[in-house]
């Protein structure tokens, strides 16, 4: 350890360890068949996950041993390797459950999209922290956008739209570093128009947009965005509303529509597409205050919830540990994210801060989308819950993502 080292942030590491261990306990329960074998039975998901966790510890030691500057210096190369590995999937990829996201090594597989996240974070941090980059300039915004978009675009056709969605997380570091709030307003407005259109139809949305537009238009204020801008906004919103409606009704396939309709509460189909969400809600709901106890979940044992040890692992927590357990997991994630925010904000080095924000953004999007889906307030998007869901690549991806930041943070005094 260098003399500038401030030591590792043990709070984050501690939360990480709790999540990993608790996650494994739930994977054990969710993948436990009728036959109880050894904890480390490598033919079972829980056995493999135990191995993955062991290897993660090994990874952590390596990550923390490498000098902090290495990550900044080699970020471009790491990014390139990552892009190549994603592109290579088109040639060498192995298809598992319909997605060509894997390199296969015997019975183990590597999912490069899980590693592309930290690579992109490094590359973006490197670019933005460059003394010559000014995020307020449009051309630089475009370049930053390209860095983010390339891996996302490589992932979409696998197809894995969920993992691609994660790249929206990079909005957070961009905004923190000075990206105009205009994008935020625009983005949020677009989302609002989108959801409202699906809920109440384009005519109502148009009416509301017009009313707001008129109110802003005739409001006597000096320093306001020009009337042209307001008019433009209104027109675009209405146009978007109608086109969303058109796309939703004519371009989307029924299965896509179903996913939205279920979350928006417009349709209840607990046997078809709504099955996952419905079963997961039943499992969680049946947990009550304290849950049914570890490995005692009847829904979990009956394997009623599909993908329960991977994307739906949180439903096991809900069923077997109740409100107390699932609430605690939510709280741990919030604590971890807040702690990481504190770490990011105390950086003097812009690279570390941007990387930190990227880490927080990525973890947050996973947390938001995954738990939101499992508890039925977000459409079904297949992305894992960090540190919890079964899967070696995912676990290692998140571990590397987090511990590079912890390493960088420990080096903050050298700036």
């Amino acid at each position, binding site marked *: 350890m260098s003399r500038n080292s401030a030591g590792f942030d043990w709070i984050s590491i501690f939360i990480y360890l709790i999540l990993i261990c608790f996650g494994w306990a739930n994977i054990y329960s969710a993948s436990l068949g*009728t036959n109880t074998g050894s904890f480390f039975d490598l033919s079972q998901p829980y056995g493999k996950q135990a191995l993955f966790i062991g290897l993660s510890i090994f990874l952590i030691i390596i990550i923390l041993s490498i000098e902090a500057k290495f990550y900044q210096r080699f970020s471009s190369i790491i990014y390139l390797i990552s892009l190549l590995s994603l592109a290579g999937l088109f040639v060498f990829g192995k298809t598992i459950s319909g997605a060509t996201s894997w390199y296969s090594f015997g019975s183990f597989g590597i999912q490069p999209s899980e590693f592309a996240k930290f690579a992109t974070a490094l590359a973006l941090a490197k670019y933005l922290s460059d003394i010559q980059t000014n995020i307020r300039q449009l051309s630089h915004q475009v370049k930053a956008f390209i860095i983010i978009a390339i891996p996302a675009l490589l992932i979409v056709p696998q197809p894995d739209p969920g993992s691609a969605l994660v790249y929206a997380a990079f909005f*957070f570091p961009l*905004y*923190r570093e*000075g990206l105009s*709030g205009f994008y*935020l307003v625009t983005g949020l407005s677009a989302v609002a128009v989108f959801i409202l259109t699906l809920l109440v139809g384009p005519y109502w949305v148009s009416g509301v947009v017009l009313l707001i537009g008129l109110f802003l238009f005739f409001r006597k204020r000096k320093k306001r965005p020009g009337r042209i801008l307001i008019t433009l906004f209104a027109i675009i919103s209405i146009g978007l509303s109608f086109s969303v409606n058109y796309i939703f009704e004519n371009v989307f396939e029924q299965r896509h529509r179903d996913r939205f309709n279920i979350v928006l509460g417009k349709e209840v189909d607990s046997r078809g597409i709504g099955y996952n969400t419905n*079963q997961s*809600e*039943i*499992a*969680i*709901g*049946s*947990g*009550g*205050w304290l849950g049914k106890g570890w490995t*005692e979940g*009847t*829904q979990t*044992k*009956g*394997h*009623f919830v599909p993908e329960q040890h991977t994307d739906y692992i949180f439903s096991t927590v*809900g*069923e077997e540990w*109740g*409100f107390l357990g*699932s*609430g605690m997991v*939510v*709280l741990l*994630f*919030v604590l971890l*994210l*807040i702690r990481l*925010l504190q770490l990011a*904000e105390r950086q003097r080095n812009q690279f570390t801060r941007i990387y930190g*924000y990227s880490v*927080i*953004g990525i973890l*947050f999007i996973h*947390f*938001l989308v995954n*738990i*939101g889906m499992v*508890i*039925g*307030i977000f459409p079904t998007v297949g992305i894992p819950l960090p540190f919890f869901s079964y899967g070696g690549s995912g676990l290692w991806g998140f571990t590397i993502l987090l511990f590079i930041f912890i390493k960088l943070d420990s080096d903050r005094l050298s700036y």
Partner: protein
Amino acid sequence: MRKVLLYITILTTGLIFIGRLFYLQVVDTSLAIRSRDNAIKVIYDYPQRGYIYDRNGDLMVSNQPSYDVMVIPRNLKPFDTTEFCNILSIERKDLEKKLDKARIYSPMLPSVIIPQLTKSEYAILQEKMRKYEGFYIQKRSLRDYQVDHSANVLGYIAEVNQATINDNPYYISGDLIGRAGVEAYYEELLRGVKGVKYIQKDRFNRDIGPYKDGIYDTLPEKGKDISLTIDAQLQEYGTRLMENKRGGIVAIEPESGEILALITAPNYDPAKLVGRKRSPNFTELYYDTIARPLYDRGLLAEYPPGSPFKTLNALIGLQEGIVDTDDKFSCNHGYAYGRGRKLGCHAHRSPLDMIPGIANSCNAYFCNVYRRIIEKYPSPQEGIDAWNAHLKSFGLGDFLGSDFYTGKPGKIPDSDYYNQIYDYPTYKWYATATLSNAIGQGEVLMTPIQLANMAATIGNKGWYYTPHILKEIEGKPIKEEKFTKKNYTTIEERHFEPVIEGMHEVYKSGTASTLRIPGIEIAGKTGTAENFTKIDGKRVQLTDHSIFVAFAPVDNPKIAIAVFVENGYWGSRYAGRMASLMIEKYLKGTITRTDMEEWILSHSLEEEYAKPLSGEPFKINQ
């Protein structure tokens, strides 16, 4: 703003998530219930229903296996429907309808396609069953009746209805429950306790082992075998005697209150309500509103008791001290009262004291006694109520409290009743207004079981056990206090002697002198009750009911009996004969007076019952 945006977003998300979790896990309890529904399968293990024996240990009801054809629609494969329908002798359309219904109920859960195949029907199907994937056979246990009578006593079992399921969590859809008679009253004894197994299921509805290693599972408990107080042979004999007549016979063992026979006519073969024909058979019985085979006349029919009721008035008279056994009353073809009104009587010598008064059933004698009872008190109200209290002590005018869910209180009028009828105090009424009570007509109503219990009480000289049908549970005598505690009447023992002698005289020289049985001393009383019906809104008198009560032997009664034959004319004509035959059958085991038996068996009253329905004018009491 740039620094706090992410803080706010993270904290908001965390709060929303915890709120949503709180709603799902703590507020909305319906999800917990649904989890139980789809993850845990409950399998019930049904125990054998208890057997039913008669008082002599003869088996009356046992069990037989029956086979339900079940289907799990999801597992169905195309099959030869024509052959399938032929084997089960059902219409193809019906099969399709049933399959559709099963599919709608649940594609994964079993539904009954054809219930209650017999062993032989099942045998044919069994070897072909493997050809019909998705179908399987569910074995159940049904009643197997060893007797073709006593349906009214035994009752029947049927599938529970939704109301019972809602009221009683023990039952689930498809369970069988006792619905009438002993099956209903002693349901909990007979049914036993079903065993329960909780099975953890997976999402394909497959069993994956016992839930929590079976700590909640229980074993079934067999239903208890019970013995009834019924004498099956006597019951069968009485049923035969009652063929082609309507009415009821109730026989009670006076010293124990045990019901030896409880017969209603017409009745039905209990086996009719078992198996595939159950439903049409039940409908047929249920909608027979003229003969009413499901109506237990022994327990439910309230008839005017007629002359047997006179014995009670005699007892009350003696107890009230207003009459002596030697007091004579004259009878001039009836009893004249008020302004030229007269309650008629038949021809007999006059005047009479108590014993020949009972033996000859003199109306005038009992009118005198009754008036003295009522007029002993300052007001007729007090008189009626005193009279009423004595009768209540015989279990009249109220439910007897036997171990049947059905029953009728009969009617013994009191002062309130007459006050209301005569609009007291605007108008006054006197003993003469209620005079028909003297001879068991008018406002007095009794059920056959109350009549039989009255005979038993007189035989016991003043006490009775509440009549009951259950004798033993698994060979152990019942201990129920209600049935093992004597009920005493308000009449002192000594007053019974002359009344019993009068009833004995009925057989020796009186109205039943033709019904004597060699070697058995019987005390009895004939009765003939006027009765009416309504035809096109008009009150029309029908042929009198034939009534008889008796107990024997006189000095140590072993059987008390009441026979009621609707429209059988005078007391000794049908009811008296039957009572004598029943007593002889029970006490001797054989019938010496085969001519009397032959007469009863060969006579039918169907013609009499058809009269009021014919729509034509008819004559009565022929």
